[in-house]
């Protein structure tokens, strides 16, 4: 349908580079929070990250073991389905290539799970090849609980709900399986450049 002109609406033009702001997004300097329930607070001594799946020999890291793995510093743009985008966010964490490289599997899909019962599905090929991390530092500081600390998934090329806060592991799957938001109206894959916000987009 041809867009309807909104009488008297001028809008504020994006000052950001158009090749970095996907359609329907606006830039913010804040770091808004989106989550479905209370913020969990897991003690680091009890924290683990586990990769498992049917027929997969599970691999588990404690917090200290995760910290001992090679870290990467990445600066990326992030895009939330609620329309804000934030450029040049600086993270530190462990590449999913490192973590998945420690697991013997032939699965194509993953369901990330997190404290609070939250899940989100991501194809394995979107978690490998230098595209995804388990991030535990943001802006040079430990990641705050409200932003997903102690550690969150970071998959910046997809809408940010895929970057599960309070992540505790990945369940590897043969078939794609919708996670929490994906069962509640949000797109199964979530490419911001295709504006895949909701079911059917």
């Amino acid at each position, binding site marked *: *349908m041809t*867009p*309807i*002109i*909104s*009488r*008297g*609406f*001028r*809008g*504020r*033009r994006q000052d950001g580079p158009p090749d970095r702001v996907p359609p*329907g997004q*606006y830039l*913010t300097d*804040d*770091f*808004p*929070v*989106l*989550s*479905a*329930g*209370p*913020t*969990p607070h897991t003690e680091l001594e009890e924290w683990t990250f586990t990769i498992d799946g049917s027929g997969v020999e599970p691999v588990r890291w404690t917090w200290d073991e995760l910290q001992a793995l090679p870290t990467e510093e990445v600066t990326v743009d992030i895009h939330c389905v*609620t*329309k*804000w985008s934030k450029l040049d966010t600086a993270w530190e964490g462990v590449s999913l290539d490192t973590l998945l490289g420690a697991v013997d599997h032939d699965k194509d899909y993953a369901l990330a799970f997190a404290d*609070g*019962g939250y899940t989100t599905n991501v194809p394995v090929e979107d978690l490998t090849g230098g595209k995804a991390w388990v991030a535990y530092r943001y802006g040079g500081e430990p990641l705050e609980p*409200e932003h997903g600390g102690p550690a969150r998934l970071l998959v910046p090329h997809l809408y940010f709900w895929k970057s599960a806060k309070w992540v505790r592991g990945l369940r590897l799957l043969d078939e794609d399986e919708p996670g*929490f*938001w994906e*069962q*509640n*109206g949000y797109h199964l894959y979530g490419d911001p450049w295709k504006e895949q916000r*909701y*079911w*059917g*987009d």
Partner: protein
Amino acid sequence: MEGTAVLGRLTWLAATVAATREETQRVRTLELEADGWGGHRAGQHLDVRLTAEDGYQAQRSYSIASAPGEPLAITVERLDDGEVSPYLVDVVRDGDVLEVRGPIGGYFVWDGDEEESVLLVAGGSGVVPLAAMARRRARLGATAPMRLLYSSRTWDDVIYRDELEALGAEVVYTLTRAQPAGWTGYSRRIDDDLLREVAFPADARPRVYVCGSTRFVDAAADGLVRLGYDPAWIRTERFGATG
């Protein structure tokens, strides 16, 4: 279609502004007529898209204020540095046409046939989706106990003030910045003592919906967990920078 989630693609619909209502100095309700709107559930939101004459577009999400079956309405608070909300609050008038799509969200919803007591906790314009739930309850004549704890800065900032009590839900106000003369309600930010006095006891296992700013939601949700509420009972919706 009342009360059903809509599957399939959410297309942009033309929505004519049928009526507007000033709720407070900063908040306005827009009643929208959108051909093809398939109904919604209390607590869901929709996307609004505005298009400037040169084709520039901006989108934002707004909670739906109306109960399922009522004329579709959103309630918008003006954010002074916002891009879309000042237009919706100050510029739009009856007969103008916006674009909307939705409804969106299947978690922060209350359908009215749930048996548990319902605790609603609102900070500022976070009351909007919660009021949809209270309206839903009134329309259905549902008997589940419902209590709304509503934090506002001042009495003049209370949205739907005249309507809320008439809906039959219990409403407990706290005014955090200034109180009218003779005020006997709470006059501080939500804290654990206040929650202990107002919230259903944990052994009632209520359903909880908390909506407001991130700081507000964290204070309320963390406090309820300290009161013994299971985090799984608590559904939150937070608004950050949504201009």
